């Protein structure tokens, strides 16, 4: 892994530390906003149909990114609110918390967005997201039968992901 050198490459499953089942759902978007993967483990409340839900989630992330890029107190020159930002450009965010859930967000340099929704008391999940990104690289990108930009239909990836998220503390 060139971009995230610190994290483990081999997609071997770590031993689950806690028996907590904290994961609510996961989204993976590509840079065009296509939802490559959506999985849910625990979602009692559904306000919209899945297509609308994915669009709303992508829109929320897009707008929050332009909000943080504009609000960034560390630089004076930030351009206008809402100018399109390339991945890694401008100040982004890594998580937000409400009273009922915590959303962790990671964007790879190629624009792959990984969103993990967990219990609000979850700890910092940045490393876990990098790990999930590595799973994506190993099981999806390296799969010769996978066409980039299409929804992921890999059982191996899904089961590995389920197992990993179940093991998250």
């Amino acid at each position, binding site marked *: 892994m060139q971009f995230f050198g610190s994290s483990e490459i081999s997609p071997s499953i770590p031993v689950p530390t806690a028996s907590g089942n904290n994961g609510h759902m996961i989204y993976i978007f590509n840079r065009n906003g296509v939802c490559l993967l959506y999985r849910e483990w625990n*979602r009692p409340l559904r306000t919209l149909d899945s297509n609308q839900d994915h669009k709303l989630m992508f829109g929320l992330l897009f707008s929050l990114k332009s909000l943080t890029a504009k609000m960034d107190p560390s630089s004076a020159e930030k351009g206008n*609110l809402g100018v399109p930002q390339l991945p890694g450009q401008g100040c*982004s*965010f*890594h998580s937000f918390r409400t009273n*009922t859930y915590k959303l962790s967000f990671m964007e790879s340099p190629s624009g792959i967005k990984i969103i993990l929704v967990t219990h609000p008391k979850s700890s910092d999940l940045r490393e876990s997201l990098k790990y999930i990104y590595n799973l994506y690289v190993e099981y999806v990108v390296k799969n010769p039968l996978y066409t980039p930009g299409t929804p992921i239909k890999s059982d191996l990836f899904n089961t590995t992901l389920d197992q990993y998220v179940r093991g998250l503390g």
Partner: protein
Amino acid sequence: MAAIYSLYIINKSGGLIFYKDYGLQGRMDTNDTLRLASLWHSMHAISQQLSPVSGCTGIELLEADTFDLHCFQSLTGTKFFVVSEPGTQHMDNLLKHIYELYTDYVLKNPFYEMEMPIRCELFDINLAQAIQKDRVAYLGR
């Protein structure tokens, strides 16, 4: 280095009614602050729709790369949010205190019109004191 970069108060329809900057970068353009406030208002509402479980009241803490945004929503829908350094603790207490100041010096001011921009001298004075106290507590740690 200040613990708090800026404070925003937005009314229940998303209009900015108070903005104060404590950072080193100088004041943001007024139009931009208005836009940011209403953008935050809608993001706050969307985050409630996306909740996997019922009873969500919107974003309380947004952790960005260079700042944290702590938000407090009162029962009447007025939102208070501060932009602070990453990892700053006890911001919810400060926000509740600011809310108290708002109820005491803004809402009880007979010349204040609801949902309109806040121009109350006593509020400014007491707010400055509260922020100063918070900063002293922050630096003293």
